């Protein structure tokens, strides 16, 4: 619920057109402030009180919080929409691996190794988990502090420190404060004692409440104390409660403009599900449902990859389809009698076609036509993969100079463009209708390639 320029202008001096802010009138300045195109400090005539009020009103509805430091800093919050189709989600959640100080030495080593080594290349990006959550469960404070020290020394990652014992929590914080760890849990029971200690060495704070209502006085109290990098845990015990709580917090922040809930959330599938696979599934639901830090008891390469791909998918900007450049691509080392296929430039289409072609071990050319990042059938329906436009692309992309034959394979789903395409290519090419699905390429391509070889 952003504030309107017409509301802001009432708070500005507005007496004379001083233009000191660089805008012709207070009203113009107010409009710019509302749209984020100017900052409050540009007006030299505001009282501290009004300035603070304006800053508060203009702050993003969900506070930006940073956990960790340097290139491993994880930024969460600052989201603008409830549903990704409304615009886009911005800051993808931190995925944390839990290490308990009750874990034995080998387990601890294994987990530290895991978080470093489990990285996956995926369509041009590198996917990895990005936080460690250190859990005080042993009852022996020294053991916990030793764990924190070890993790601090052996990784560069951001941390979530989890301890019901406040002394242990703050002692742990003091070891790694420069790493900007999240301190958890601050509750209605410990908040008053905790505030001075949090302020002594300020880092982000994770609040836990038995309900959303219980969190509200806590965030207000911390804000009054100048502690604003917060993350909320409404104490959801299962998936249904989690959906309710996350939905209410998100709606309160974005639709009601309710500041006390305008913070990112932290979720603990590690404490919610007993079974490893169900824990990952709950975690994936939290990705869909707006959690900003998600803590897992454990994972391996086979459970982490799907989760990271889920995160990538949901946080991809829906306004810009992932597309590859329009040109012909070579798979293997094709020669003048290798098959030529044409497809659209949606990254996933290209990815599927090229991996299917690669699997046949038949060297080939894949001509990728710009269809504004749409899949073949959708592109055709939208007029971006018509016979005429594909023909024009084939003529100018230079593939004609690479092969001696004149046979062009089109996706089976757009068989209907065959005639139009042949016309567009002045009947110089024969258009071959290929398989409907990329799975059909395995059966189709080797035989076809053999025929082409036979011709030359």
């Amino acid at each position, binding site marked *: 619920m952003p504030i309107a320029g017409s509301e802001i202008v009432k708070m500005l001096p507005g007496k004379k057109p001083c233009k000191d802010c660089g805008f012709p009138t207070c009203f113009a300045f107010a409009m710019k402030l509302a749209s984020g195109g100017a900052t409050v400090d540009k007006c030299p005539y505001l009282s501290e009180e009004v300035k603070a009020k304006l800053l508060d009103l203009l702050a993003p509805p969900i506070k930006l919080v940073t956990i960790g430091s340097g290139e491993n800093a994880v930024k969460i919050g600052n989201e603008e929409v409830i549903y990704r189709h409304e615009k886009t989600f911005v800051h993808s959640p931190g995925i944390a691996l839990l290490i308990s100080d009750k874990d034995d030495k080998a387990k601890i080593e294994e987990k530290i190794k895991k978080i470093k080594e489990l990285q996956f290349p995926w369509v041009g990006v590198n996917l990895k988990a990005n936080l460690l959550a250190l859990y005080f469960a042993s009852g022996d404070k020294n053991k916990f502090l030793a764990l924190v020290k070890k993790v601090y020394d052996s990784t560069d990652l951001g941390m979530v420190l989890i301890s019901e014992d406040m002394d242990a929590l703050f002692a742990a914080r003091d070891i790694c404060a420069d790493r900007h760890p999240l301190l958890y849990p601050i509750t209605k029971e410990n908040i008053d004692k905790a505030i001075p200690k949090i302020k002594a060495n300020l880092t982000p704070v994770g609040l836990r409440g038995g309900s959303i209502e219980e969190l509200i006085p806590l965030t207000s109290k911390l804000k009054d104390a100048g502690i604003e990098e917060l993350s909320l845990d409404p104490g959801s015990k*299962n998936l*249904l409660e989690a959906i309710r709580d996350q939905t209410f917090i998100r709606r309160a922040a974005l639709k009601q403009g309710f500041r006390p809930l305008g913070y990112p959330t932290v979720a603990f599938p590690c404490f919610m599900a007993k079974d490893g*696979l169900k824990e*990952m599934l709950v975690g994936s*639901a939290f990705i869909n449902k707006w959690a900003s830090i998600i803590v897992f008891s454990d994972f*391996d390469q086979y459970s982490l990859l799907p989760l990271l791909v889920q995160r990538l998918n949901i946080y991809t900007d829906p306004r810009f389809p992932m597309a590859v450049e329009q040109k012909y691509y070579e798979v293997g080392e094709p020669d003048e009698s290798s098959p030529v296929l044409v497809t659209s430039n949606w990254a996933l289409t290209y990815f599927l076609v090229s991996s299917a072609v690669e699997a046949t071990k038949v060297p080939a050319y894949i001509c990728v036509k710009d269809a504004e990042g749409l899949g073949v059938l959708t592109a055709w329906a939208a007029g971006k993969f018509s016979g005429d436009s594909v023909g024009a692309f084939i003529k100018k992309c230079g593939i004609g100079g690479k092969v001696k034959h004149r046979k062009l394979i089109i996706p089976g789903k757009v068989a209907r463009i065959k005639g139009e395409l042949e016309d567009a290519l002045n009947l110089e090419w024969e258009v071959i209708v290929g398989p409907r699905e990329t799975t059909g390429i395995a059966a189709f391509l080797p035989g076809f390639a053999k025929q082409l070889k036979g011709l030359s």
Partner: protein
Amino acid sequence: MEYKAPVEAYSGVVREVTIGKGKKSLKIGGENILPLHFFDQGSNPNPAKFALEVLDMKPEDWPEHAVEPLRDVISNSVSWAKKCQDFAVDAVSLFLVSTDPAVKNAPADKAAALAKEVAEAINVPLIIYGSGDEKKDVEVLSKVAEVCDGMNLLIGPVLKENYEAVGKAILDHGHTAIAQSPLDINLLKELNVKLSKFFPSDRIVIDPLSSALGYGMEYSFSLVERVKQIGVITKDSMTMMPIIANLGGECWKTKQAKENKKQGLLWEGMTALSLLLAGANIIVLRHPETLKLIKETIEAR
């Protein structure tokens, strides 16, 4: 500023569609809330339902870990469908893949006879998916509709290219239609508008095409989410139909699902849970263990 729980209420109601007949019938849709939003005003009388895949021929490219729970029945569609009931399915979905001209081009008569045999052998409703070949499906699905007259199967895909012929057969023989369009809300609505001219809207289920995790899942997710919201929130009659997410096949054809069992179950499970959270009313899965995992995850208290 006082906190007031942001409970919402909407005016749209998804049509309640019944598939199957008598004891074998199942209701889907009927909700006036967003998925799992039990905290908003309204209700969902028919929480999301689950079906398992059965193919009309022995699958050739399934990984060992997908074959394993079905090994003893996988060469016989009827036994396979019966076995699905051991996994607490709400419905069975028979895929007539062998009828595809690019596969075996099996004749319509044979497919229809099998559909009837399967439908009679099980105690839950049957979903029938043709091969997706728009021409062959006219023949195959019309024959299935005729041979299974009056059984109220859920039959598809009814496509823009063949909706008149296939839709008519489904209507004449008392079945329910799956209207399928390729990942686009305008095409989806257009097909529903055309179909609704002669086909009752409360016998249509929307299939917006489900892509697998990592292979376009985000498109399916946002599309299903939008279709649901446009139906429930803005009351658009042409999107107020239940949604089917047929995702098992899409997920299990990925390299990642084939590579490792755990990865495969999560690939299918996360895709399914995402589409369920987006608004799918009935979900077609391949692996029985995925079904169990999803149900237990949602039902955990």
